[in-house]
């Protein structure tokens, strides 16, 4: 397997990551030059062939999303980059935004070219203030070099600008419709769907929303071809994935992992996780952010790929891998996860607002030893209800981690029941 990085290849090699000259010297903007010469249908075909799946967490095929917008009439079409990276354990977009921002800009420019979009937005979480400054510098230098503005690359009518929008601390704004509401100057609460954002998006106009890493993959696909991109990864999802490793593994940080790499290598190989931090065996992992499932040793094996994980009822999600060693209680971990959702629930729909709170109260009982016989069943039922009845992805996934804990380590919950 070829382990040469494609997303992180320029990182550390540019003295000034915002410099168009350095970026171009390392292969930058070659894909955009190609794109303006290509038939739009051919660009879409390459992305289809690449089987690029959304890197924000939902893993929706990017080619399909682009085609949906392509088939929709109505102008203008907006290009929006979701840089609200708020899933705990995820810090990979930060690396691209700060250290190779022009690759994200180039990906957005290819989209602008395909959709004849005049205007793009990137929504960067408020906590990433310095990241945002770095990105602004890249936008400014791209504009100064003629890669943003009017008649880009000399193509008459290829006009595109990127505006940076700051978040102000709301996890739910990572949900694409909430993010668009936030850009529109509203409280960042999700919309009821349908209509889908491809039809009714920003300012009621057709809109493409992709994650930072997804946009950064686009130039790679055009440069090496969709087929090569697919072959770099796995059949069910091409390319490489940026993985954020934290918790109790030796090497914490962002790693570029070809999809299809043995899962155990991602955790234990020296080039990636490097094994347990203090020598205590890893008890469980938390994959893809707080909305993802816990993974236990008996599930760890096979390939780190979309299907490889789905087969084990796991998910890649944002690419977060939080490792926990034997010192951590599954019950206490579950409680902390639910605390997060209680804090971040936007309050718009009742199952999520009240349901997460009631689940937390019950989990607190398990931690304190006040849980009674029948509470496991009660917990299980509440998880089902909250996830089935909530309006958006936040509530629908709020119980995933606790449910997986309950499924695989029921005994730990049973042990906390008094009497």
């Amino acid at each position: 397997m070829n382990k040469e990085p494609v997303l992180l290849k320029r990182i550390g090699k540019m003295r000034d990551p915002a410099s168009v000259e350095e970026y171009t010297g390392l292969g930058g903007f070659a894909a955009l030059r190609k794109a303006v010469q290509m038939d739009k249908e051919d660009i879409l075909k390459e992305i289809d062939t690449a089987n690029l799946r959304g890197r924000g967490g939902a893993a929706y095929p990017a080619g399909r999303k682009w085609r949906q917008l392509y088939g929709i009439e109505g102008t203008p079409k907006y290009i929006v980059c979701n840089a609200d990276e708020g899933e705990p354990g995820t810090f990979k977009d930060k690396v691209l935004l700060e250290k190779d921002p022009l690759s994200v800009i180039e990906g957005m420019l290819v989209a602008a070219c395909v959709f004849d979009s005049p205007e793009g937005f990137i929504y960067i979480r408020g906590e990433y203030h310095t990241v945002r400054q770095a990105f602004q510098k890249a936008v400014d230098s791209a504009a100064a070099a003629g890669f943003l503005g009017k008649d880009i690359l000399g193509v008459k009518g290829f006009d595109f600008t990127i505006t940076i929008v700051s978040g102000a601390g709301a996890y739910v704004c990572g949900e694409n419709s909430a993010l668009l509401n936030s850009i529109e100057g509203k409280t960042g609460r999700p919309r009821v769907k349908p209509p889908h954002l491809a039809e009714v998006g920003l300012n009621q106009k057709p809109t493409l929303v992709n994650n930072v890493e997804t946009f950064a993959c686009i130039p790679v696909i055009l440069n090496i071809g969709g087929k090569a991109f697919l072959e770099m990864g796995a059949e069910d999802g091409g390319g490489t994935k940026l993985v954020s490793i934290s918790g109790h593994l030796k090497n914490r940080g962002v790693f570029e992992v070809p999809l299809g790499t043995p899962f155990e290598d991602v955790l234990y190989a020296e080039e990636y996780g490097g094994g347990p931090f203090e020598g205590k065996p890893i008890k469980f992992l938390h994959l893809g952010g707080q909305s993802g499932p816990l993974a236990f040793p008996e599930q760890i094996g096979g390939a780190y790929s979309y299907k490889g994980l789905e087969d084990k009822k796991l998910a890649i999600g944002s690419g977060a891998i939080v490792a926990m060693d034997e010192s951590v209680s599954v019950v206490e971990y579950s409680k902390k996860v639910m605390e997060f959702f209680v804090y971040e629930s936007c309050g718009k729909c009742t199952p999520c607002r009240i349901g997460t709170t009631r689940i937390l109260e019950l989990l607190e009982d398990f931690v304190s030893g006040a849980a009674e016989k029948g509470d496991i069943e009660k917990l299980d039922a509440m998880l089902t209800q909250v996830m089935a009845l909530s309006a958006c992805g936040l509530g629908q996934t709020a119980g995933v981690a606790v449910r997986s804990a309950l499924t695989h380590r029921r005994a730990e919950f049973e042990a906390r029941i008094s009497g």
Partner: protein
Amino acid sequence: MNKENLLDTLLARQNASKEGYLDREAIAAVAEEFAMPETRVFEIASYYAMLEIEPQAKYVLEICNSTPCYFSKSNEVAAWVEGELDVKPGDVTGDGLFSWHYTPCVGACDIGPVIKVRDTVYGDLTKETVHALIQDLRNAKNGKKFR
């Protein structure tokens, strides 16, 4: 003003304010600037976690307690901070300089446990570095970034 600048404008006003929050006057001024009802702007200020509608201490120490940090000893960091400052979460020290509270993930899990003060994240904290950070802030020096 375009609506996409609203959060930026609110954050900038808050940062420029003496007590680190958006008072009624600030809300009214922003409402006028954006041609929005004051209640809407207030709703937004009260919705987003980084926007404050109450006076704040000069330095608010935000301790990440999402799971990657929490189980990398951020609970101990909280105990050290509470010990140093001798105030409960949310309360301000007598001199008005410090308060502390928990915050969800700030996206620095690779250097957890972390404290965020304004726009700076201090990571890989130990009891000693927490002590030094508070001392530095108290002496109006920029805290060193420990990592």
